[in-house]
């Protein structure tokens, strides 16, 4: 009865006093305990969770339940600073860091009564799309191929956030998305993953990867849950200068699944012969569903799509190289003692950062260097404007865009990719959306012939999350996909 609960289902059980928040919480804590093979959690906040669940039950007994999030066990990517709880960014350099403060995102959840189960594994400093760059080891995808027993990646960087939802180790989770880090792992694990408009969710207290691209968002089992979570974490925050002043919205209560008379764009630049046939088929099915339900499908062009990936791999490392300068061994985190300052920096940072993080710091440092700035960083910013313009133009004609979320499905953890650029191609469908600051959602469509989830991506104009969720719900209701991988890990 307590398996595969959605937020709505769990909330109903608590409201009707059929189950206590503590019972639900304990059942999840038990599942987490039994699922260590998946390596989803870096920290399990057992005592914190039990304490919070008791408080919910106390409120419920007095008929004072705060709302639908009260008593719902969540888990957070280990990029969100959590007061008195280890927060590592999956990096050795922060492997001893315990914040004295709570990020706005997690605080918003806690204020609505949500229960913190713990902190989820991810790629180190959110850099990666396999979850293999974590200092704490790779997360394992709960899904496996029908024809093989090898362990698969859950995608990344929010690999733990996606895998824990697919394996039902939490009802839903929060991740972050800089170039696809919510949508790609959601797609690899059969979950719903939403990246909000840049500025919709406060970045305060979230460890920064690339400040102009980072955005937190929900990973959940259903579109309804994504809507509830989005309204829980959104809103203006005067501690984040880039946070939007727009009032928060009631995404869940305004949710409807009508797509009648909507115009859905299909970008021709996203079509390619390299795209696996099954992904193409699901994409076509998506067009068919929306068309049958009353939407008009229009082919569109986003001419600068090809330039998005190189621009992203200049801008994101540039910002990261500066954002990660603060991890220097002086104030907190790892320090490798040496006789002088420069040596201390060198040893601490050599020791504390993994290869992918070092690679990006070096790329970022290079592209910002005098003499190279104009050729790389400035040019990338110009491309970014052109990409934004592409979307602005398209949204004059269409309400939303439908694309695949990823160019592939989950692959083997053991698959060694020597060329980092090949890994970067995982983000090819998701990166342009971050560059343009738009909201997008990845929703599961079905399984490929290996039995692995395939996700599609919907994109809308800035701050049109409601429309995004509505269309996603329409598809979800038409498909009826169940994210229930066969349990092999207990």
């Amino acid at each position, binding site marked *: 009865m307590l398996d595969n609960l959605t937020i709505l289902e769990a909330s109903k059980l608590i409201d009707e006093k059929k189950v206590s928040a503590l019972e639900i919480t304990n059942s999840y804590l038990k599942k987490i305990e039994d699922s260590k093979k998946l390596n989803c959690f870096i920290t399990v906040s057992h005592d914190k969770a039990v304490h919070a669940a008791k408080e919910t039950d106390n409120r419920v007994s007095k008929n004072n339940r705060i709302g639908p999030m009260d008593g719902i066990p969540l888990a957070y990517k280990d990029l969100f600073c959590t007061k008195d709880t280890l927060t590592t960014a999956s990096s050795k350099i922060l492997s001893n860091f315990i914040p004295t403060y709570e990020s706005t995102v997690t605080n918003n959840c806690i204020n609505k009564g949500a229960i913190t189960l713990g902190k989820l594994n991810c790629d180190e400093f959110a850099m990666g799309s396999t979850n293999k760059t974590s200092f704490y080891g790779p997360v394992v995808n709960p899904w496996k191929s029908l024809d093989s027993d090898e362990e698969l990646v859950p995608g990344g960087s929010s690999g733990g956030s996606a895998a824990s939802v697919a394996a039902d180790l939490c009802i839903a989770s929060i991740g972050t998305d800089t170039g696809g880090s919510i949508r790609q792992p959601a797609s690899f694990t059969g979950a719903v993953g939403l990246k909000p408009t840049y500025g919709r969710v406060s970045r305060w207290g979230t*460890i920064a990867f690339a400040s102009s691209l980072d955005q937190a968002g929900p990973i959940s089992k259903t579109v309804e849950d994504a809507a509830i979570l989005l309204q829980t974490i959104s809103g203006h925050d005067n501690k984040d*200068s880039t946070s939007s002043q727009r009032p928060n919205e009631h995404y869940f209560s305004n949710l409807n699944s009508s797509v009648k008379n909507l115009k859905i764009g299909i970008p021709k630049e996203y079509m390619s012969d390299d795209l696996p046939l099954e992904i193409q088929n699901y994409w076509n099915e998506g067009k068919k569903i929306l068309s049958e339900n009353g939407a008009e499908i229009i082919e569109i062009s986003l001419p600068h799509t090809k330039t998005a990936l190189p621009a992203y791999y200049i801008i994101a490392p540039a910002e990261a190289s*500066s954002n*990660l*300068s603060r991890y220097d061994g*002086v*104030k*907190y985190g790892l320090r490798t003692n040496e006789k002088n300052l420069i040596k201390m920096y060198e040893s601490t940072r050599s020791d504390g950062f993994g290869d992918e993080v070092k690679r990006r710091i070096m790329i970022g440092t290079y592209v*910002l*260097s005098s003499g190279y700035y104009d050729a790389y960083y400035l040019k990338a910013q110009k491309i970014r404007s052109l990409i934004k313009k592409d979307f602005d133009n398209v949204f004059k004609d269409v309400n939303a865009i439908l694309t695949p979320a990823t160019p592939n499905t989950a692959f083997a953890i053991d698959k060694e990719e020597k060329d980092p650029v090949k890994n970067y191609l995982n983000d090819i469908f998701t990166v342009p959306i971050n560059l343009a600051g738009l909201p997008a959602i990845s929703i599961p469509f079905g399984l490929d012939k290996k039995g692995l989830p395939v996700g599609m991506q919907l994109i809308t104009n800035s701050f049109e999350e409601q429309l995004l969720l509505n269309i996603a719900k329409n598809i979800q209701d038409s498909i009826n996909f169940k994210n229930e991988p066969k349990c092999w890990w207990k």
Partner: protein
Amino acid sequence: MMNDWQTVIGIEIHAQVNSKSKLFSSSSTDFGSAPNTQVSLVDAAMPGMLPVINKFCIEQAIKSGLGLNAKINNKSIFDRKNYFYQDLPQGYQISQFKDPIVGEGSVEIEIEGTTKTIGIERLHLEQDAGKSLHDQDPNLTFVDLNRSGIALMEIVSKPDMSSSDEAIAYVRKVRSILRYLDTCDGNMEQGSLRADVNVSVRKKGEELGTRCEIKNLNSFKHIGAAINFEVDRQIKIIESGEQVKQETRLYEVASNKTRSMRSKEDAHDYRYFPDPDLLPLQLEQEWIEKIKKSLPELPDEKKLRFINFYKISGYDAEVLTSDRRISEFFEEVAKNRSSKLSVSWVASELFAVLNKLNLNIENSPVSSSQLGELIDEIENGTISNRAAKEVFEEMCNSEKSAKDIIEEKGLVQISDTSEIEIFINKVLEDNPENVEKYKNGKTKLLGFFIGEVMKATKGKANPGLLNQIVKKKLDN
């Protein structure tokens, strides 16, 4: 030979913004607090912390820009200046690089009666770093982050100065303007205002020479001495047939010399780029106009007014308006009183005392109203100027009013004709030979008789009356 050389000087002034809280956090900026007690999560660059601009600091920068007759830019951008240092918690300083908040402006300086205009290139806002303490432990360096994040204005001049005197006059003038505006307290000892000076030399008519930058000068004296040393050094290098190397230098007080700190080759690549945590700063023209209207009278205007209204010399007006508090003190004293007496008592007598006690006007032992009362006693003839000096000295050492001291010391001037006559008669009787000599034409002896009467009255005789009566008696 030295006369063939021209000196070219440009100055960057770093002025701490007068503000209760820091540029991007709400921490206090109190000077002298215990180490690391004025540090927020943002100032310590904890993971996930974000800067939020302090609007008051922006207003202060706009005010300063307007005071420097400069263009205020409606859009400016905060950049990150990246470098590693133990007292720079973020690993970058938030500053303004390509698009500063204030653009070109100018100030006027006066050198030996001639006015010269010095161009301002720009004014930008940036955050200060923390402080490294190297003297607390034999092996370790300690870091105090109280300063970390405090707002600074960097004011960059054009290379318009050609002597150390002009350089000092320029820094003095900028400091004075900022103090008038209350945008910087100008306290150089505490480091609220410091200057980096760029110096080069060239032969008249030639192109600009290679410049050296002398960092962190925190007194007018050091600015002057460092420039003079540097100019000599550079001329000697060139005259010996060698070339000046572009470098950053430090001035050492003890030896009164500058020494190399780092060469151009060692200069950091700061990898400036726009800070993605902060949106471009957009300023409404309306707000700028509102600030403009609220500006106080500035030193140049005030000086003109003093010359015209108080009918005082340009020199006196300059001295009295160089500092806003001094000008205010003076105006309080001079209100409805003789401006001549007021100037002399403020600019000579009071300044002498302040200098001796090393105090500034805010801590003057005598308030403007107290000094005014003393001048009143002179103006209404109660005491002589000479007696007034004695009263003033006592006022500086006690809380007593001029009136009380005059009474206590019996310094009231004798202005009663018959009383003065008694003393005069006595002196004339006692000195018959000198009376005779005077009458035979040695009129210079008048001073002798006046002096004797003053001695007899302990200086209390009204000098005007005394002079008049003595003359009358002798001439009869």
